[in-house]
């Protein structure tokens, strides 16, 4: 063994340099703003002259202060209208007495109409505004609330986006439950960053304490991120479809004896094509427009590649078991990523996100130092006990 071959890997300095390099690359991949800079409240942004950007639709909470009633509705931005308009059933749910309310004449494409004008409090994008809204029969229209020009001052509307500011809405569903809904509100990137070291723990516990082999440690964590992004049912459907697609394509690609990189690129390409087709001809066209849909695809590609590798080396059964455990670990990690205490810590800078990271790293070190038997080894090594001491 010459010195030259030991230049990388064996040399401690070389390894340190490599990990530092990797860290720099990681940091570059992270949004340049520090975590807490992204967390400025909408009020602060307004006072500093910045406007909050909202999407074409936005989750809105309406409050009737007199009756103490709250209703959450999906509001659609309508810059063609001056007044905000809410449906009759929304007004009913808020306990608003529309009979005795002030009335105005509204002009619409349908002609003139008398409509009640009511006062409510609107919570949108982390802000609270007292607004006046007209009440109309919106039962035959999809949107139960249209947000008019009058109540959009200070907002920039990005019509290409949906529900941009929704995560800061104060009364959204409990996130763990929301995960099983479709689609779940995607947590914001910086709070995800803080929660990742916790999610990774699931893979660590599976491997070191239980003795279950997942496909590496990153596959389950990335998969759990994907589940959080699109919701569990949709995530499982995407993953399952792609695994099946991978199984079909595998025998076609195998005879080509291509290197791993090329194989991965081919699957990714095929999958993107399938997704595009789904977007154009499938029931939900927004699926392919949304970048968040691309992320689970990339993750599923990685899982497929791991699956193939395992299949080649350890056989089909082992590969299937590995895929199953990886999915289960991801399902276990996903609720952690969006659980109340963890999202709360992650969203309260400057100190708490670091607490979360420290806890994750600390527990990883603790578990990593455990050198005893894994749970599964109590079964595996039973025959070794029969003689005991000798």
């Amino acid at each position, binding site marked *: *063994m010459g010195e030259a071959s030991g230049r990388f890997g*064996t040399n401690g300095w070389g390894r340190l340099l490599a990990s530092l390099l990797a860290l720099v690359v990681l940091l570059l991949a992270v949004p340049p703003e520090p975590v807490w800079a992204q967390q400025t409240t909408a009020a602060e942004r307004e006072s500093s002259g910045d406007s909050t950007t909202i999407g074409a639709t936005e989750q809105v909470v309406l409050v009737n202060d007199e009756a103490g009633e709250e209703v959450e509705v999906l509001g659609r931005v309508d810059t063609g209208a001056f007044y905000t308009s809410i449906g009759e059933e929304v007004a009913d749910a808020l306990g608003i007495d529309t009979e005795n309310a002030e009335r105005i004449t509204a002009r619409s494409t349908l002609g003139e109409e008398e409509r009640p004008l009511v006062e409510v409090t609107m919570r949108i994008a982390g802000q609270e505004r007292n607004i006046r809204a007209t009440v109309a029969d919106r039962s035959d229209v999809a949107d139960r609330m249209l947000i008019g020009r009058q109540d959009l001052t200070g907002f920039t509307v990005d019509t290409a986006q949906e529900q941009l500011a929704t995560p800061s809405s104060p009364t959204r569903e409990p996130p763990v439950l929301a995960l099983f809904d479709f689609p779940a509100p995607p947590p914001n990137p910086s709070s995800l960053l803080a929660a990742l070291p916790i999610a990774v723990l699931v893979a660590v516990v599976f491997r070191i304490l239980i003795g279950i082999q997942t496909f590496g440690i990153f596959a389950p964590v990335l998969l759990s991120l994907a589940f959080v992004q699109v919701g569990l049912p949709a995530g499982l459907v995407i993953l399952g479809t792609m695994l099946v697609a991978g199984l079909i394509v595998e025998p076609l690609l195998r005879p080509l004896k291509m290197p791993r990189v090329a194989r991965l690129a081919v699957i990714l390409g095929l999958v993107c094509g399938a997704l595009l087709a789904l977007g154009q001809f499938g029931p939900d066209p927004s699926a392919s427009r949304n970048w968040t849909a691309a992320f689970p695809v990339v993750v599923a590609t990685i899982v497929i590649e791991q699956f193939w590798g395992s299949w080649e080396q350890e056989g089909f059964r082992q590969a299937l078991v590995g895929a199953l455990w990886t999915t289960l670990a991801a399902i276990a990690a996903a609720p952690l990523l969006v659980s109340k205490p963890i999202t709360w810590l992650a969203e309260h800078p400057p100190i708490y996100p670091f607490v979360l990271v420290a806890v994750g790293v600390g527990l990883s070190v603790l578990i990593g*130092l455990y050198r*005893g038997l894994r749970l599964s080894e109590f079964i595996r*090594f039973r*025959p*070794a*006990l*029969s003689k005991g001491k*000798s």
Partner: protein
Amino acid sequence: MPTADGRALTEILGAFVPIGKGRDWDEVMGMNARTYLVNKENPPRAIRLVDNKQKTKDVLEAVGVPVPPTIEVLRDRRDLADLDWDNLPDSWELKPNMGRQGAGLVNIAERDDSGDGTGWRTGSGRPLSRSELVAHMRRVLDGEFSSGEVEQDWVLLEKLIVPHETLAGMVPQGLPDLRMICYRSEPLLAMIRLPTTASDGRANLHQGALGAAVDLGSGKVTRALFKGEEVSEHPDTGQNLIGVEVPYWNETLDSASRCSDATGLGYLGVDVVIDEDLGPLVLEVNARPGLQVQNVTGVGLATRLRGIDGQHWSSPV
């Protein structure tokens, strides 16, 4: 604060589930402890060395450890084109130099005189033409059977091992081999792996080979395990195994104990075959030896390590 060696877990668990006594479990080494030992004792350079069969043979030979004699090393296609087929012995073994788990191995038992007379026959009697062998060797050179992401490999041609009659008589087919687990120059546990019909002639426990514990002091088989059950006879041949003495036992122990210094590995598995003519030969050295040997011998590796090193092997860094 629970101790890092997991005594806490075994004891807590033992209180609820009938897993055996906590103390007994302490003698068994698990994957976590093995990973720690490998990281602590085996430098990456040594691990890379033993992945390379030819280089390993070179360093072992240098300290007087017998290894299978090399007939030819083909480093590229030019070497392959220049190979003098007529001067090869009648039987030989083809190995990918960086091969993983027996992938790409071919053993040639004799020349095949039928046809144009340039063909060969494998140990199982399958005829292989020269051009088929060349095609296979090209695939080996392209790294198809090699571990990791190597793009190139060497073809090793070695003397075909003929198992010593004592061991050959125990098995229906295949080559039995000894696995010695060593901590530095100290052998800790030994077992002999006997191919079965179920393992398709391979000496791999996970593929259904039989494992038999060998007592370090006497070289005698003390216990045998087949598919997780204790047996006293080979399931295919019916041969009694218990009490059989491994031939050349002292030489085998001596060879195994020299492998650590030669390779730089501190915790290693040494695979030894006993050749009819040449005696014990070290086939290869493993930097991450499996833990199954504990099941076969019924002895935990932790016990042996404590006894030898004196130190508590699983104490935190």
